[in-house]
């Protein structure tokens, strides 16, 4: 297993290199630049700005210089937030997104897994229909509808929570619920499907025949295999949850990183785009590695190869 992890970590280096290179040149092919705003600056100022940030040099030079600073762990200065480096912006906003993501993930698992298991075990009964319908509602009601609805109901009419902001612990509740419910719906559907596949297999019948209790059959024998599709889904999903959500952060006015993913692309803030992409890539790769390890641990038929 150690060798497997080491090999995967080594594979990460070329993957990150390709991502950085592709993103670097992709964003440069997009028309417009960080200083083409509605308030146009004079050509002299533009020249000075470009000279200051090294944008007047040939592209391959800029690319090599960027790779060099990356190796030193420096993501460069932001073009849109003056006097701030990308490292500072990420260090400032990532913890907020991580916290929101962690709570949402907790909600998603705590709601999604029981719904899915219950629906699969009581297949085609009213319990199944109830759980499956609850999950479907989570999918039918997008976050940009559920968010404002909850704000209206609990923030403005009932006044249980603040309508927006990220100051007191209680401000975590509504955004975590909205983001969590969305993923809970997916987890519930995938859990139900995965469990149904497993519950029909011979080893479950064997476990029952040996006299294992129903709870043990479900949670010890069936859940391990039934979770496989959920685990595959969770890898990239967790990376997405932890790096913030554009919609949720906009609705609830949360100073997280999710908005920077979209805004930096619109602002042509080259270094911030690259910084957020590298961060997200590292998380995706890490999560997918963990997923691949968990899959082997869940399934005795698999080996680390």
């Amino acid at each position: 297993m150690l060798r497997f992890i080491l090999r995967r970590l080594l594979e990460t280096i070329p993957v990150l290199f390709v991502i950085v290179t592709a993103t670097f040149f992709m964003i440069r092919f997009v028309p417009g630049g960080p200083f083409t705003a509605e308030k146009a600056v004079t050509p002299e100022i533009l020249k000075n700005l470009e000279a200051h940030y090294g944008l007047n040099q040939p592209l391959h030079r800029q690319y090599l210089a960027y790779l060099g600073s990356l190796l030193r762990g420096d993501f460069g200065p932001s073009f849109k937030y003056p006097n701030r480096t990308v490292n500072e912006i990420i260090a400032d906003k990532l913890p907020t997104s991580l916290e929101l993501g962690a709570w949402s993930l907790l909600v998603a698992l705590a709601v999604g897994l029981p719904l899915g298991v219950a629906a699969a075990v009581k297949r085609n009964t009213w319990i199944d229909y109830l759980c499956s319908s609850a999950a479907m509602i989570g999918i039918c009601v997008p976050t940009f509808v559920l968010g404002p609805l909850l704000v209206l109901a609990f923030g403005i009419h009932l006044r249980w929570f603040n309508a927006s902001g990220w100051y007191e612990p209680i401000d975590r509740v509504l955004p975590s619920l909205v983001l969590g419910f969305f993923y809970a719906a997916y987890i519930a559907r995938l859990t139900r499907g995965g469990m149904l596949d497993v519950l029909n297999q011979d080893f479950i019948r064997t476990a029952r025949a040996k006299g294992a209790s129903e709870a043990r059959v479900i949670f010890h024998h069936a859940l391990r295999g039934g979770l496989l599709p959920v685990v595959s889904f969770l890898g990239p999903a967790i990376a997405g949850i932890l790096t913030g959500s554009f919609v949720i952060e906009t609705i609830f006015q949360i100073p997280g990183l999710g908005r920077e993913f979209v805004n930096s692309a619109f602002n042509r803030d080259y270094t911030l785009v690259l910084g957020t992409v590298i961060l997200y890539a590292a998380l995706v790769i890490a999560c997918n590695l963990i997923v691949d390890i968990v899959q082997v641990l869940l399934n005795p038929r698999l080996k680390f190869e």
Partner: protein
Amino acid sequence: MVSLSPQSLPSAELAPDQLERGTSLWRDAWHRLRKNRLAVFGGFVLVALALLCLVGPIFSQSYQEQNLDLGAAAPSAAHWLGTDTLGRDLFSRILYGGRISLVVGLVATVVALTIGVSYGAIAGFFGGKTDTVMMRVVDILYALPFTIFVILLMVFFGRNIFLLFFAIGAAEWLTMARIVRGQVLSTKKMEFIEAARALGLGRARIIFRHIVPNILGPIIVYATLTIPAVMLLEAFLSFLGLGVQPPMSSWGVLIKDGAEKMEEFPWLLVFPGAIFSLTLFSLNFLGDGLRDALDVRSSKD
């Protein structure tokens, strides 16, 4: 299990291909699907909705004709589902928007399904270096910034509804590939695959005739989850400028606009949301029915 009585054995006079057809997975599945009332109901609603969106606009009012004096009006005899802030008939807008949303949902999901299943199955089945390279490519594609990809597409190809399918399909097949790969990794170790190998079957035949039918459950479940995701992603892309432009509309865009005005003009959110939910619920019943019908291991009837 089914006891093998002499009557249930196929008679020796049947030609071999007839024999095969008699026990084909799809035929069995169709038979079982028809007995599942919820699934039949779901399929019926979907067909009815598709027909309504296809034919309805011919008879309905214009979706783009504005009536600024009227503004946003509640449902009435003249406008069954009310009008939006520009006085446009909501019912017609939902019908026209449905054309876009249903086609996007269907086409992009089929694209994602085809690429994702083939890619994931091949990576999982071959394993080793092939798997490593293929899955690292997926990691790379996950990480590339989607917003910039979309802007680049628009720059090079202009605004185009077909690009929308391409952009969404390119984004949505990745998770499908990972799920399929995970399932294939465990399925390929099972005895019946060994048996298929022992019979000397080709690799393509083993993958697509023996492995994929056995993992259809998770594939169908994830496909029914992809369709709503695609329809909502379309709303986000339309917001970015790719996708449908006003005065044209889609369900995703209608819901998004409705959500912004839900307090003053609730019908602008309620009706598009209701039709969207009805579609997804029907789809889901049909998907669950298909899943059950295609479950090769529970074929007791």
